[in-house]
């Protein structure tokens, strides 16, 4: 056939099965979301209801899109907002600029900011694009607030920190499958993400004395922090994270 062979190839394509997954709001026919999707941020709270944010501005400093604006303030003595000395007084994220790189999540020393999996939100004016602290912080059940222009799927609000749990504390493979984060309001200490360890051959679990190195930047007030050391026996805990939801 020579030159004309290509015509046969394209013609044959016409009768092959399509692999496209239809995306249409309202049909319920959406592809399952990956565990670590980067979506709209949430500001987390401790299990006692205290906010995790300490207003350190590390997230704002690391943000490549400069979409985060944070101002810290001293905690009121009689009614503290966060367990530490300072708290995030102003916290704003401009979603017209955010590129969802999750560097703020990696930078955060207290796991205060994480990204939910929500990506279907379409505000219609610029003011709505700037999420304030009141909109970002989780509600009293520990779930993200549902704003009118956001399309949350059922169960989506329960997974607000997949990426954080996958990479914390430093993205090193040696720390895979280890809990070293504090508990969250409503959910307690989340199980580690089911990592590559379960898919591949176990290359070698980290030895015990490495644990001293990973506490960098973590405050001691975290409620779940004491649990971090039982992670060696924790392998089974991540099983239900694989594809159950």
């Amino acid at each position: 056939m020579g030159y004309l062979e290509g015509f046969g190839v394209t013609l044959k394509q016409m009768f092959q099965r399509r692999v496209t997954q239809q995306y249409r709001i309202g049909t319920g026919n959406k592809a399952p979301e990956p565990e670590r999707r980067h979506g709209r941020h949430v500001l987390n709270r401790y299990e006692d209801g205290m906010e995790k944010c300490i207003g350190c501005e590390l997230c704002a400093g690391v943000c490549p899109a400069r979409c985060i604006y944070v101002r810290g303030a001293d905690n009121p003595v009689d009614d503290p907002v966060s367990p530490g000395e300072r708290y995030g007084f102003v916290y704003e994220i401009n979603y017209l600029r955010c590129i969802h790189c999750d560097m703020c999540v990696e930078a955060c020393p207290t796991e205060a900011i994480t990204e939910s999996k929500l990506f279907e939100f379409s505000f219609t004016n610029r003011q709505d694009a700037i999420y304030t602290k009141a909109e970002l912080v989780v509600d009293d059940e520990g779930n993200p607030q549902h704003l009118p222009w956001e399309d949350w799927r059922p169960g989506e609000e329960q997974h607000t920190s997949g990426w954080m749990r996958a990479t914390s504390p430093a993205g090193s493979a040696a720390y895979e499958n280890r809990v070293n984060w504090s508990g969250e309001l409503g959910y307690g200490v989340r199980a580690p993400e089911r990592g590559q360890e379960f898919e591949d051959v176990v290359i070698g679990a980290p030895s015990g004395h490495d644990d001293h190195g990973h506490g960098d930047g973590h405050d001691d007030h975290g409620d779940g922090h004491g649990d971090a050391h039982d992670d060696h026996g924790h392998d089974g805990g991540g099983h239900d994270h694989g594809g159950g939801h």
Partner: protein
Amino acid sequence: MIFAADPLFNQGVDLAVFLIVVVKVVIVFALLLVSTMLMIWFERKVHADMSNRIGPNLAGPWGILQTLADGIKFFFKEDILPTKAEKWVFIIAPFLSVVPAFLLFAIVPIGGDFNDGNAGVITVFGHDTLMQLADPPIGVLFALAMSSLAVYGIMLAGWSSGSKYPLLGSVRASAQMVSYEAAMGLSLMAVVLVSGFLGTHDIVNWQAGEGPFGWFPNWAVFITLLVPFVIFVIAGTAELNRPPFDLVEAEQELVGGFNTEYSSIRFALFFVAEFMNVVTMSALFATLFLGGPAGPAFVGPGWLWGTIWFVLKTLAFMFMFVWFRATLPRFRYDQLMDFGWKLLIPLALGWLLLLGTIHLARQEGWNPAITAGGVLVVGLGGYGLLRGAISAGHAKRAAEADEEVPV
């Protein structure tokens, strides 16, 4: 008189005749616009199928109203006039490109009963008329003229934009169209030669006549022995700036080509003109080479079957254009020029001479053996001359390249 060949004007022009012409204009206009709209949808859908995608599927059933939605959107987009643009030329250029596209369709017969010596004449309110807007005696030349005029729209658009990429695009456009126009005209002349007619209606009527062996269709594609048809399709594709000849708007090189600086409805006009030209060119292919509305009529009125055959044949060519686009990669500029000048034009010219010789030999009753021998000698001589000229050109260029002192 440009309408002269239409029997509508035989008994003079009165109000009824005038109204019939007006209705015809409206029908052709609407038909062309709707078919252009459907063509854009068809192209997107078929192209999607060929690359294993789904294509537009939200606006209307099977996404058929997608073009309408796009068109409405274009009206509401901001219309930008670049400060460096040559204002009036910039404004006129899209119309220069759209109007010939409309005019070209006016000479295409879109139906009519060509069986049993009816010659495609239908009777409307007691008036005999043809199912085509105009049947000028110069028919085919009019088609060539209009497709050449469309080049001006593209050329002036690129030039008046005051920008580099559009200018490059329009320079390419003018060179490409001038080159391929020659091959197109020569292959078209083959049809004119064998049929003996210039008008589109006469050509269709001739093709509806009895063919070789009594049962074979007398279509020009067979009578001219296929080669002019192939050349015409290739040159027509180049004339339309369709892939693989879309160097004019090569997205990867020239942003959008000649229409880069255009926005809003002005851009939409270019877009519409492009696809309208696809429709009219497909119709022209069908008319000139595949007998247009000529075809057997079964149950029902004969003129309806004419339209059905015409639509089917035109659709086949539309599909062909989309198939080309989905399959073939774009030509490089020098390949384009080589292909046009060194292959298509000599081939079209040689074939025209061959057909002319055959025609004359049959008319004059020449000895077939001597004629064939003469044709062979002249053909080989011509081919040898062409090869010689091309290789001499190559040698000269190579020598020049050697002489150049490296800096």
